[in-house]
């Protein structure tokens, strides 16, 4: 089943046109990140091309109202007894229509396979498997299947129609509300877009739960304390998963967009398209990875198919809960490979860092659910759900936070390569030094200089092929070979910058960064590469900044340029990070907000963090307020100062509450600034 987000109305958020546009653009970015499937065999065949320009994207749902590409299905046509009413979604596995089952007069969601997929045995197998997997499940929290057939050359799946939002849309709404400084957000009910500010005023909303009598009015989330509500939703889905697991079905694609919320506030699990039955062979025999990258478990990410069991679903549900609570994904990266690497080797930022008000017990539960080692997670969805209910009932939870020893051991394990190499470091460096000095007078060095002379002139003819340069770099054995390769690559990078071939340059730099990681043990060469390309990266930031500011290029090009800048935010060099941050802050693309926040959460150096905070300040989106507020507790006073300045500029309604921790700041000069902010806020004159 495709994204539920696309099943529902694609209504823009209330507000003026530009807000709606920004919201849609933001959703698009998140979709690009979230919905990349890593099923390499079918990826190209199943995914429709992304919209080529921004305008087309913003109005895509209306444009597709009449017909569906390649399927020949029009509103009003009847397919095997189902009358099509409107298209409500489109995803990797097909197009979804709202339809009426003529014989029973009931509304269904009709998921139709893409044209051509009917002849593709693999796609049909997957489609059939979804139908059979769900058909054996009967649970109030699982979207039910009414029928499956291939008729008139069209393969379809008729499912229960859920009218409402999916959890990805809910998260989007919460983010947007936070950006605009709104406290209450309606996520279910008869009119989802009704302004509930007046309605919410004076009501006690904290205790509103699914099943609450007030549910008829719809669920309204208080952004100050969305935690119990989110925990309750996930506890319900854990129940659904328990049922699926008991019937031998592993979902394998749990993510927010597969959690559907109807207008009465009931949450349901959908999209069993990637489900695996215990008694059926998986269609991914080739070892392809399945799932959405940001939500796959480490065992899925490492492609250890044998290790994928119900605990993988627990993990993905944990990641989903993490995002619902913090509005951030725990593992991000510039591309799928990096996301997977982060899942396999990284630790997520503690949820309390992103959502400072989160209850400690809930944070403990989330972190246990997303433990990298399956044996340390909840062993069943039932255990997970039970612990969430204990939290909701104010009972002691079963999960325990990590102790100091465990945290220290984890750090050692994470850096085990560096630590083990540490002992050998002196030997290795000495060897490289000896090797390099031995080669110091080699004629090859003069060759390098000659090549640089020729390449640097830009009048000397063709550049070396990038692929060849990278091969040189990755296969170099001796110090001289490495040096040679490093300089060749650097020269090529400069040439691409001067020639304005930004996309190729971005690609080259990305690969070079990876290669630099491989060169880490040869410290000198790694530093050399960094020193040589620093100027190129800064030049790239400068050029992209100018082009973006001039609104040069189409939407795809702009997105690609923004993505390049977003990637450079993570550069090890603070100057490169600062250049990228300044560009993104100035361009103020809402779609880059997440990248800036993620970079800030991950970065550790003062200069980089301050640069990112200033960029968030320049962007001026209040969505950044929670993260900035958490930086007020940074051990680094300069980071605290930058965060205070940024919050002062963003001026959130609860600024006074946020800066209270600074009243006990040990730095006297920071207290002075703190008083300055509060005095002005209170309208006092010093």
């Amino acid at each position: 089943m495709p994204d539920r987000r696309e099943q529902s109305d694609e209504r823009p958020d209330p507000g003026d046109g530009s807000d709606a546009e920004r919201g849609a653009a933001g959703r698009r970015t998140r979709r690009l990140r979230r919905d990349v499937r890593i099923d390499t065999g079918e990826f190209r065949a199943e995914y429709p091309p992304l919209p080529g320009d921004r305008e087309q994207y913003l109005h895509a749902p209306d444009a597709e109202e009449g017909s569906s590409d390649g399927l020949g299905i029009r509103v009003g046509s009847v397919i095997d007894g189902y009358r099509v009413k409107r298209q409500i979604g489109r995803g990797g596995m097909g197009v979804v229509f709202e339809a009426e089952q003529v014989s029973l007069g009931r509304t269904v969601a009709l998921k139709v396979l893409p044209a051509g997929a009917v002849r593709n045995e693999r796609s049909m197998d997957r489609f059939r498997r979804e139908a059979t997997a769900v058909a054996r499940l009967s649970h109030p929290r699982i979207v039910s299947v009414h029928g499956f057939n291939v008729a008139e050359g069209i393969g379809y799946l008729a499912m229960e129609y859920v009218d409402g939002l999916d959890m990805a849309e809910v998260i989007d709404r919460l983010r947007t509300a936070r950006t605009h400084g709104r406290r209450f957000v309606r996520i279910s009910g008869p009119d989802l877009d009704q302004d509930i500010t007046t309605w919410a005023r004076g009501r006690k909303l904290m205790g509103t739960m699914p099943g609450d009598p007030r549910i008829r009015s719809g669920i309204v989330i208080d952004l100050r304390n969305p935690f119990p509500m989110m925990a309750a939703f996930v506890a319900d889905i854990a129940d659904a998963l328990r049922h699926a697991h008991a019937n031998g079905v592993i979902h394998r694609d749990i993510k927010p967009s597969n959690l559907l919320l109807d207008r009465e506030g009931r949450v349901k699990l959908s999209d069993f398209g990637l489900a695996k039955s215990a008694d059926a062979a998986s269609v991914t025999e080739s070892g392809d990875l399945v799932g959405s990258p940001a939500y796959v478990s480490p065992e899925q990410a490492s492609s250890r198919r044998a290790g994928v069991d119900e605990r993988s679903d627990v993990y993905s549900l944990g990641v989903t809960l993490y995002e619902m609570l913090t509005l951030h994904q725990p593992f991000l990266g510039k591309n799928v490979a990096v996301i997977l690497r982060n899942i396999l080797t990284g630790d997520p930022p503690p949820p309390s860092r992103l959502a400072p008000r989160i209850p400690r017990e809930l944070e403990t539960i989330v972190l246990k659910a997303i433990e990298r080692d399956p044996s340390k997670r909840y062993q069943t969805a039932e255990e997970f759900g039970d612990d969430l209910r204990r939290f909701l009932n104010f009972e002691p939870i079963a999960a325990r936070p990590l102790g100091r020893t465990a945290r220290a051991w984890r750090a050692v394990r994470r850096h085990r390569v560096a630590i083990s190499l540490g002992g050998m470091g002196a030997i290795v460096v000495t060897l490289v030094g000896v090797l390099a000095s031995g080669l110091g007078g080699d004629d090859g060095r003069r060759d390098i200089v000659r090549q640089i002379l020729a390449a640097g002139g830009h009048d000397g003819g063709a550049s070396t092929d990038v692929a060849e340069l990278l091969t040189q770099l990755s296969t170099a054995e001796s110090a001289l070979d490495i040096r040679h390769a490093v300089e060749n690559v650097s020269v090529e990078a400069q040439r691409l910058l001067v020639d304005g071939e930004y996309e190729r340059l971005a690609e080259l730099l990305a690969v070079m960064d990876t290669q630099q990681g491989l060169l880490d043990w040869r410290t000198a060469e790694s530093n050399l590469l960094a020193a040589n390309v620093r100027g190129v990266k800064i030049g790239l930031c400068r050029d992209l900044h100018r082009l973006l500011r001039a609104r040069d290029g189409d939407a795809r090009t702009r997105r690609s340029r923004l993505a390049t800048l977003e990637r450079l935010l993570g550069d090890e060099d603070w100057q490169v990070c600062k250049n990228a941050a300044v560009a993104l802050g100035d361009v103020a693309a809402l779609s880059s907000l997440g990248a800036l926040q993620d970079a800030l959460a991950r970065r550790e150096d003062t200069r980089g963090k301050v640069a990112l905070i200033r960029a968030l300040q320049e962007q001026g989106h209040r969505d950044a307020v929670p993260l900035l507020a958490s930086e007020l507790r940074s051990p680094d006073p300069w980071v605290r100062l930058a965060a205070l300045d940024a919050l002062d500029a963003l001026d959130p309604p609860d600024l006074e509450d946020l800066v209270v921790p600074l009243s006990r700041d040990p730095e006297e000069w920071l207290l002075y600034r703190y008083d300055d902010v509060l005095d002005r806020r209170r309208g006092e004159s010093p």
Partner: protein
Amino acid sequence: MTTRSRIAVTLLLLAAACGGPEPAVGVLLPRSGRTQAAGDQALAGIALALETLPEDARPRLVVADDGGTALATTAAYDVLVDEGAQVVIGPLDTGCALAAAVVARRRRVPFVSPSATGEEVTRNNTFAFRICAGDAEMARKLATHAAYDLRLQHVVVVVDLSDRHALGFAESFAHEFVVRRGRIVAELPFHPGDEDVPGLLDRAAERLRRSAEEGRPVPDDRRGVLVMASHDDVLAMVRGARSPAVADLVLLGGADWEGPELEAALAGRFRGAWRVSHFHPDEGAPDATRGPDVSTFLDAWSRRHDEPPSDIAALAYDATLAVLPQLADAADGAELADRLRELAFLGGVTGRVHMDASGRPRNKSFVLEQLHDPRRSAFFERSGE
């Protein structure tokens, strides 16, 4: 060959070479590119320093062009070592010095930078040295002067994003100024060549005005702008300023703020303009002897050049005179580096150089100079005091 990235290796035999294994001194400077003028000044300073030596004591000099880029720096450094350089004077720029540091460590040939002020240049590298003060020390002096002497309360920072020294200095200044209860109202970053460079001072004035309206009232004469940019960009900004509000501003800058053009452009347009540097053409450095050393330098300079010597020329002059005596009988680069770490050079025109173990001078002196002041008032300061 074009200028960019080329390695124009020029062998300048400035002194008569005696036969035998004489030590060679490598010089790594921008002889092309945006910073070529600074390279010219530095080379003039080095040449002048060699002239002060007896003819038979002058080493062979090998000069290589780093083009002001890291890539060219690394290749050029190798060429210098291959040509027999036992020590390298240069590079000037922090970014180039960082690249040079990589090769210096591997080839075990030390370098002494006259003007690379970045704090990271000498970090964890026993073959990297500098004789100028670091960004943090200079910025602290300027911030102290701004907060306590000029009594500035609000400052906008205008900074060149592509210049590592400018960024490092601006950041250090901001820290020191805030600790002294000043406020950095905004940072206006730019790249050389940006269209809006000439309007940056107007924008700074506007940000200062807005900030004063929104927050605590700040008198007009308590507002300043730190401009960390190259001479050409500063000149473009000063000339491009149109807003009447700039007349109330005090401008603050670094060693790049020199030359008659800039002084003429600044005259009478701002409340004040101050720069921090290592050398004052009329006075030398505060702790220089003001005796034969400074006068020898100034006399020799005036015989060859119409303009007064710049900061860079003076620093390069000092670097040469400080390094050459250490070459005698040094077995290899490592021994030379050991000697440089214990260097105590008292006759510098930019002040004394007492090198510390990490390759930086301790308590290097500064000059705080008010530009376009008919009295050319200058404060002399020493770092770390």
